[in-house]
């Protein structure tokens, strides 16, 4: 369980709550994090001084570039869209605090932030906060019920004044900004010769000794990138066996806070029982402890429960559906107090096409192990789906997979 003290992720909270027992008071005292551990720079064995192409400028791709820069390895990051970040995305102007349209929670002891940078010489601090909701409701069969006691079992760290996007923007991207090529969707990777050739839909051709593929799993599954030769059958089977469902985030500003800090649209015990199903739908107070004067309600939804929203054609339809739902729960207050909204439909993002990996044919650890194995010492893989059992589908998981991939690349 990836805990620090009693701080747990949302998914683990659902399992944890179901196992209340006499040992729990003492579990929270077990030091699970590395609060006092001094972070040191990684020392990889370097038997490689060629060039590397990194496909994708999400968390994994950016971390890979950050590490290669440190080892003075020639590299380029090829990004399909016009911005870096992948599923880290920020809405800077929507409210009086920046909003994460993608990855939001830190999911671990916040010392992981220093670990991802692994630079003891950095002279910078960052503020984080425990998101420990004070009011927790559930809505099922027309009944709104309070479960505020649940707040004693759930807490996760979030950034206080910034976002995941902002973290990478401030601490990693400045070192590698000149190495990122934008608006260059990759459609071919040829590793038949000594050098690996990467081609894009913009008719560009890049060549390097090794390629690190840091693409979203949905993109790999879509076959929009042709490999020559084809990827080995085992690799393809592993890639295609990963389930990446629909996902959406919506933020709505209201003139009044009529909603709780967390609202489950299912019975609280149904949430506990079905917590591992991969279906996630949660309304939450996005302005919680953000020193904000605004009332911002967030909707986070992944899985089958997200599809009714992601499949709608327009933003107007999505927001109408959500307001209708909230009006039913809160007796019309949503429409009465609505100010504005922002929608991030990840299923419709052309270079993402979904949310994040929720399951695979084998265990997530086994999946990561298989995917991290390089092909012909030329193709390497990294990404949030390779985060392993404890870190799958998290930014730290994506970053840490890049550490593993770079270590393999540098080992030659």
């Amino acid at each position, binding site marked *: 369980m990836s805990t620090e003290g*009693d701080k747990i992720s949302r998914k683990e909270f659902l399992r944890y709550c179901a196992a209340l027992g006499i040992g729990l008071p003492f579990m929270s005292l077990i030091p699970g994090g590395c609060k006092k551990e001094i972070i040191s720079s990684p020392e990889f064995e370097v038997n490689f001084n060629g060039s590397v192409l990194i496909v994708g400028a999400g968390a994994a791709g950016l971390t890979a570039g950050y590490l290669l820069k440190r080892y003075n390895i020639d590299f380029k990051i090829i990004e399909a869209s016009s911005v870096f970040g992948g599923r880290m995305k920020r809405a800077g102007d929507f409210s009086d605090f920046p909003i994460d349209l993608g990855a939001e929670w830190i999911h671990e002891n916040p010392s992981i932030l*220093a670990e991802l940078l692994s630079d003891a010489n950095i002279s910078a601090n960052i503020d984080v906060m425990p998101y420990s909701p004070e*009011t927790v409701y559930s809505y099922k069969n027309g009944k709104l019920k309070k479960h505020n006691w649940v707040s*004693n079992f759930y*807490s996760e760290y979030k950034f206080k004044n910034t976002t995941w996007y902002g973290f990478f923007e401030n601490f990693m991207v400045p070192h590698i900004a000149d190495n990122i090529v934008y608006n260059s969707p990759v459609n071919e990777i040829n590793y038949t010769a000594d050098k690996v050739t990467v081609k894009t839909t913009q008719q560009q051709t890049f060549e390097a000794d090794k390629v690190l593929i840091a693409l979203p799993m949905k993109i790999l599954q879509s076959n929009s990138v042709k490999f020559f030769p084809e990827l080995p059958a085992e690799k393809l089977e592993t890639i295609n066996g990963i389930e990446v469902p629909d996902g959406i985030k919506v933020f709505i500003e209201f003139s009044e806070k009529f909603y709780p800090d967390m609202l489950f649209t299912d019975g609280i015990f149904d949430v506990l029982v079905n917590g591992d199903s991969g279906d996630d739908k949660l309304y939450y107070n996005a302005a919680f402890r953000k020193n904000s004067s605004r009332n911002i309600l967030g909707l986070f939804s992944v899985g089958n429960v997200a599809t009714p929203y992601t499949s709608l054609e327009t933003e107007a339809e999505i927001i109408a559906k959500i307001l209708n739902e909230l009006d039913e729960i809160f007796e019309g207050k949503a429409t009465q107090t609505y100010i504005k909204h922002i929608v991030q439909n990840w299923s419709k993002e052309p270079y993402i096409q979904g949310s994040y990996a929720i399951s695979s044919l084998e265990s997530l650890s086994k999946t990561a192990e298989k995917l991290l194995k390089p092909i012909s010492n030329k193709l390497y893989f990294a990404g949030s789906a390779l985060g392993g059992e404890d870190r799958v589908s998290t930014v730290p998981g994506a970053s840490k997979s890049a550490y593993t991939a770079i270590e393999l690349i540098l080992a030659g």
Partner: protein
Amino acid sequence: MYLHKAVTKHTFTIIKKIFFIFFLSLVSFSLHAQTGLKELPLVIGLYAPYISQPGGKIATYINLKQWSKKNPEEENAFEKANSLYVSPQVGAFVRPGNHNSLLLNADVGFKHLKRSRFFTAYSIGIGYLNTFQIISETIDLGSGETIGTDRERKGYFLPTINFELGKEAKKRIGWYSKLSYGRNVSTKQENSAFFALEFGLSIHLKKAEE
């Protein structure tokens, strides 16, 4: 005039809340002034609100009234004994990475003691809970250490109902276990359910009488 203003402006100040709880305790102490504090058991226990937040509690029990049914077959032995008691308590517990809390509480209850010295007790408690909630932490990105923490104080009244099960001391040391259920009540935020598990020892500084 100051007192009048304070009452009209605020329901309770923090000092008045503390005095309320200790007033209840002091009343119960004064009723037994003639017996001396050494007669009172010292109760020390592990205290776990929500079963997951570790802490401790110190308390004592003060009998307000006691009556027993003697065993007619044995001299100086009782069949069972009942008592009404007051128990002032101080407790503290922590939710690591989230908050520290201090509890001042007083239970008023009924205890049923059997000849075997096993007892059950039912009580109502009224307490005041001070929680010091972490609202932000500053992380040094070079070392990963937490170098600063901001906290916010929250106060709750905590009425509870309690059930105890234990064994009275034969000479000096007995044990108890206790289940509590109540509500965190505050004028500033929504109420929430409270429950706690406790178990510990009662220590008689003066040998307990059989």
